[in-house]
């Protein structure tokens, strides 16, 4: 076995092994150690594989079942970075909850949490690594099942309600998507003249996507978009999102918002590329822009009037998924580049704000923003990072999202009237969201702090939390100023494979 194969094999098996180990090792510290070591190893492997793909091109393993192109490599890198940060942020978070007796089942709950988180990361890595479109569906459905268990982790009435809504809406959605997968398979079968051994591999299908029946492929895309779109959080199918993201333990919320939504969008983008080739560029593009603009508009009132800190960030996720949908919808080299940059910038910024808001929610004992005031004096690190994270999310320079939004706007203005109109609406909505989010963040950061917390509280941040947010801060700032060579190569390659030949 070549070292490349070995690395891919390890990346895709390590989290499962870690989950099994976490179920048996004795004591909380041992469980944490396994989780941290596995997350660090996954991080190193994920980044190494991304660099490998950037230098040597696509990698195949397991007789082509695993096919890592540039787009997969970008997703793997994003997932493994956020996975590492999520696991690290979990250590102080779960310790605190265990201490105050909020973990249901005590130590058993802790085991369950870390094992669940490992399997959750694994399911996302598999989803973005498989080439077969059917297996992509299987992976995405697996992420829903695993993460629903983590959403309902606290087993309170509200958490169970959130988990149930999440399961129902996303499963109905994904059943619709399965119909889209079937139709795509059928379109390929028709295109090949009823040949029996039809491949469902994306790399094969994209090569002769022009032969796909255009009518069936359009229908397939609509089902896939609505189905996976429910999971990506497109309005009007977003109603589960704020519940799930606010009820989940905060490190999980960061993973759900930062990378799981992106995984659903990743699936949609793969189908978009097929549909573009089979049925022309406009069809999929207009649907994506429509859902994107609607999601951004729907999120505005919920952000302005929000009282719950985590729900605020959840609705901000609806907004950002909408932005990515608009970027991919505009398409072309510039649009796709903007979408991919935004995906990574958002993952880092959203992960960071959820991880630090977990710290704040635990210190104040509430998620209500009327209670969480004066965070910069109660917990200086979390408070300042929350304000900075909100600035990054609103697209203030020099954060990464500033660059991706500017790229998206210029992409939109280069295209037709529809794209220009969409971008104009988006800019207006973003201005309002900017004001709303900033106002909320200022109150949380600098409002009058509760005297008891200032006098008796421990103001120092856990070293684990520092370790969890440091890479994210670095990414947000770095990508805003200079995108590293390998990432640039991967974005260019992904952009070419998605758009080339589409006309």
């Amino acid at each position: 076995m070549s070292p490349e194969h070995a690395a891919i094999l390890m990346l895709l098996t390590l989290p499962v092994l870690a989950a099994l180990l976490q179920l048996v090792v004795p004591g909380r510290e041992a469980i944490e150690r396994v989780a941290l070591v596995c997350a660090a190893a996954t991080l190193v492997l994920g980044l190494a594989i991304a660099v490998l793909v950037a230098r040597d091109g696509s990698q195949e393993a397991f007789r082509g079942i695993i096919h890592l192109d540039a787009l997969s490599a970008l997703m793997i890198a994003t997932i493994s970075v956020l996975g590492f940060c999520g696991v690290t942020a979990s250590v102080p978070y779960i310790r605190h909850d265990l201490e105050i007796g909020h973990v249901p089942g005590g130590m058993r709950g802790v085991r369950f949490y870390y094992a669940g988180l490992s399997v959750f990361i694994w399911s996302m890595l598999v989803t973005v690594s498989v080439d077969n479109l059917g297996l992509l569906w299987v992976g995405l459905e697996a992420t829903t099942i695993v993460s629903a268990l983590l959403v309902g982790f606290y087993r309170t009435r509200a958490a169970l309600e959130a988990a149930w809504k999440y399961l129902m809406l996303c499963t109905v959605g994904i059943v619709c998507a399965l119909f889209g997968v079937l139709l795509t398979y059928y379109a390929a079968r028709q295109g090949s003249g009823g040949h029996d051994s039809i491949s469902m591999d994306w790399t094969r299908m994209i090569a002769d996507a022009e032969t796909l029946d255009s009518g069936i492929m359009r229908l397939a895309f609509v089902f896939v978009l609505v189905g996976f779109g429910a999971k990506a959080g497109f309005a009007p199918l977003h109603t589960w999102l704020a519940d799930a993201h606010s009820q989940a333990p905060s490190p999980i919320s960061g993973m759900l918002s930062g990378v799981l939504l992106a995984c659903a969008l990743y699936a949609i983008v793969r189908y978009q590329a097929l549909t573009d080739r089979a049925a022309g560029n406009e069809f999929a593009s207009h649907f994506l822009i429509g859902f994107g603009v609607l999601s951004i508009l729907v999120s505005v009132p919920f952000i302005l009037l929000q009282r719950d800190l985590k729900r605020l960030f959840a609705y901000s996720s609806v907004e950002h998924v909408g932005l990515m949908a608009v970027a991919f919808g505009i398409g072309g080299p510039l649009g796709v580049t903007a979408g991919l940059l935004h995906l990574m910038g958002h993952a880092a910024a959203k992960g960071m704000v959820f991880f630090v808001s977990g710290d704040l929610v635990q210190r104040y004992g509430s998620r209500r923003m009327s209670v969480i005031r004066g965070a910069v004096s109660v917990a200086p690190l979390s408070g300042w990072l929350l304000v900075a994270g909100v600035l990054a999310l609103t697209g203030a320079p020099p954060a990464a999202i500033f660059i991706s939004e500017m790229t998206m706007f210029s992409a939109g203005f280069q295209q037709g009237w529809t794209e220009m109109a969409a971008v104009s609406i988006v800019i207006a909505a973003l201005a309002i969201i900017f004001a709303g989010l900033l106002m909320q963040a200022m109150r949380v950061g600098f409002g009058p702090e509760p005297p008891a917390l200032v006098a008796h509280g421990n103001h120092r941040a856990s070293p684990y939390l520092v370790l969890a947010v440091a890479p994210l801060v670095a990414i947000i700032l770095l990508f805003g100023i200079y995108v590293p060579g390998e990432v640039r190569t991967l974005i260019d390659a992904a952009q070419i494979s998605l758009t080339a030949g589409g006309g």
Partner: protein
Amino acid sequence: MTVDPLISLSTAGSVLDAAALCLIALAFAGTVVRTLSTSIALLAAQGLVLSIASGAAALAEMEWRSWGAFAVALAVKAIFIPLMLWRILDRMPVRQEPPGFLSVKLAVPLAAALIPISYRAIEPFTADTIGAFNATNALPAALALLLLGLFTMVTRKKALSQVVGLVTMENGLYLAAVAATRGLPFAVEFGVAVDVLAGVAVMGLVIHEIMRVTGSTDVDRLRTLTG
């Protein structure tokens, strides 16, 4: 190695056709009955009919892939899922579906109307979409199952009935996969079945916890999270 098929494609097509009609009837009955144990029994019957359909397809195709799909359908849809739902029901205090969001007088004709709608919607496609088996009822039945399942999900209050609706929807897709595309690749078929099974297991777990915390499994009581 090639084995001569035991039945012809057209015989398998007739079996599929009959199975499709049976499935429509079973799914429609599922929207009418109010006793939870009966709706689970009807779901098990759906699973059995589906496995007969995919068994017929396997006899006609004689590929190991089709036999695998048949085995998976039989195990998951006819045995494991009904058993799992049965176990959840066993622990429930109330086993009767309370009056839904729609009155029976309104719900039954609405559900019945979904069947001709499915036939009309599929009409433009049937000309070339029926696939090798030439089973004209299969695709309309697939759509009907999808719609009837969704109908069950939105009109019922018991969490368990919603799971039944969801599995009905998935059964519709399975039928479409067998009839129109002659089945998905086995790895995909297997993965989908495992996902559905795991999904139902997790839903069962959540239902169990909801019951423990709220003392009921009526989902209309789950309305605390808004804004």
